[in-house]
C-alpha cells in the first residue's frame, strides 16, 4: 500500500492542536510508515503541494490570507479535517466577532494601523467549514492526542469517526 500524502496547516490558532498532535509520542512511530508528511508548519516545505490525501487544519479563518490559503488547500486536498475548536467553531479568535475589524485594529495599533505586512481581517472570524467544505470535524480545545489518533486512523481506513464530538 502506498503511503498517504499527509499535511497539516495552521490558520488563526494557538498551535495547541499541533502540540496535542505531537503528544501522540510513540504512536507517531506507528503512524509514520503509513503517512508521508508533505507539508506542515513542523517541517520545512515552503509551498502546499498539488495532491494531498489528508490535511489537518488548525485554526479559524480570520484574514484574507487565511481565506486564500484554505481555498487553495481545499482544491488540492482529498480529505480535509478541521482540527480543534478554532477550526470547528472559530472559538477564541471568534470572540472578536462582536466588534468591527476597524475597532480591533485601532485598539491594538492606535490611530495608524499598518497597511502592509498584516493581512486584512475578514469581517468575522469563521470556522473552516463556513468557507470551504470540511469532511471530518475534531472539536476540542485542544482535542486529546488519543482523539486525534483514533480519528486519523479511522479516516486512513475509510471508517466513520469512532470518537464522540466534544467542544472545549
Amino acid at each position, binding site marked *: 500500500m502506498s503511503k498517504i500524502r499527509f499535511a497539516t496547516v495552521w490558520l488563526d490558532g494557538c498551535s495547541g492542536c499541533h502540540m496535542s498532535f505531537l503528544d501522540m509520542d510513540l504512536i507517531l512511530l506507528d503512524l509514520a510508515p503509513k503517512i508521508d508528511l508533505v507539508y506542515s508548519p513542523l517541517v520545512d516545505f515552503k509551498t502546499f503541494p498539488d495532491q494531498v490525501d489528508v490535511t489537518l487544519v488548525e485554526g479559524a479563518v480570520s484574514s484574507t490570507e487565511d481565506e486564500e490559503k484554505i481555498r487553495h488547500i481545499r482544491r488540492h486536498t482529498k480529505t480535509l479535517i478541521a482540527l480543534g475548536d478554532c477550526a470547528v*467553531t472559530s472559538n*477564541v479568535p471568534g470572540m472578536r466577532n462582536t466588534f468591527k475589524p476597524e475597532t480591533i485594529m485601532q485598539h491594538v495599533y492606535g490611530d495608524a494601523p499598518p497597511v502592509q505586512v498584516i493581512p486584512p481581517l475578514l469581517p*468575522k472570524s469563521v470556522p473552516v*467549514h463556513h468557507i470551504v467544505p470540511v469532511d471530518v470535524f475534531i472539536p476540542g480545545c485542544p482535542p486529546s492526542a488519543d482523539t486525534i489518533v483514533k480519528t486519523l486512523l479511522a479516516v486512513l481506513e475509510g471508517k466513520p469517526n469512532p470518537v464522540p*464530538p466534544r*467542544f*472545549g
Partner: protein
Amino acid sequence: MNPATTAKVITLTIDDRSVGAREDQTILQIARENSIHIPTLCFLEGLTPAGACRLCLVEIVGTSRVLPACTTYATEGMVIRTTSPALEAHRRTVIELLFAEGNHICAVCVSNGNCELQDLATELGVSHINLPYLNPTRPVDASHPRFTLDHNRCVLCARCVRVCDEVEGAHTWDIMGRGVDARIIADLNQPWGEAASCTSCGKCVQVCPTGALVEKGKAVAEMRKRHALPKLITRQQEHGS
C-alpha cells in the same frame, strides 16, 4: 407527583417496552423511572416543566404532532417513541441553534467540562454548527458580590426564573424582551447586585445548565453545580408537610 394520590394505574408502551405508570405522571417521569433516556435541557426535577427547549419531543402513535415528554401526561395504551431519525435530527438542530445564538466559547468558560449544553452536543453527536453564528453583543452583569451573570452563555431555559419563584419564593428573575432579544432580568431590569428581592441564596446559580450564572472566583472549568438542589428541597417540603 405525590404517590399518595389515588391516580389510576395505566399501562403504556415506550420504545417497544410495556411499562406501568399512574395517569398523573408525565411521559418523561415514566421514562426516567424505567431508565429510558430522553434528552432534556430546560427540564429540572423539582421545578414546573416549561416545554421550552423542545429536546424531549417524542412521537406518539396516532398523533400527528410531536409532543414534549416533560409536559405531556401519559394515557392508557399510549404508544410512544422516544427516538427516530427525524427526532434525532430535530434535537441536533436545537443544539446547533443554541450554539449559533449565543457566544458559547467552551474553551474559556468556567463551566467547561460541567456544562449541560456541552454534554448534549456530545450525546447527540453535534460535531460542528451548520448554521451562521449570530455573534450577538450581550452584556455581563458582575454587580452581585458573589455571583456573575454572563448573558453570552444563557440559553433562556428559565430554570433560574422558576427556581427563584417556585423554591426560593423571591421571583427576582424574569424574562424581558422578545425573540432573540429576550433576556433574563433581575427585578425590574436592575443590575443583579441592586435587586432588592434577591436573597443571594444562589439557587439560580446551582440550577443553571451552562456558565451563564456562576460563582465569582472560579477559573476555567472550575465551576461545578448542584443541579439536584430543587429536587432535594421540594422532596423535603413534601415530606415535612
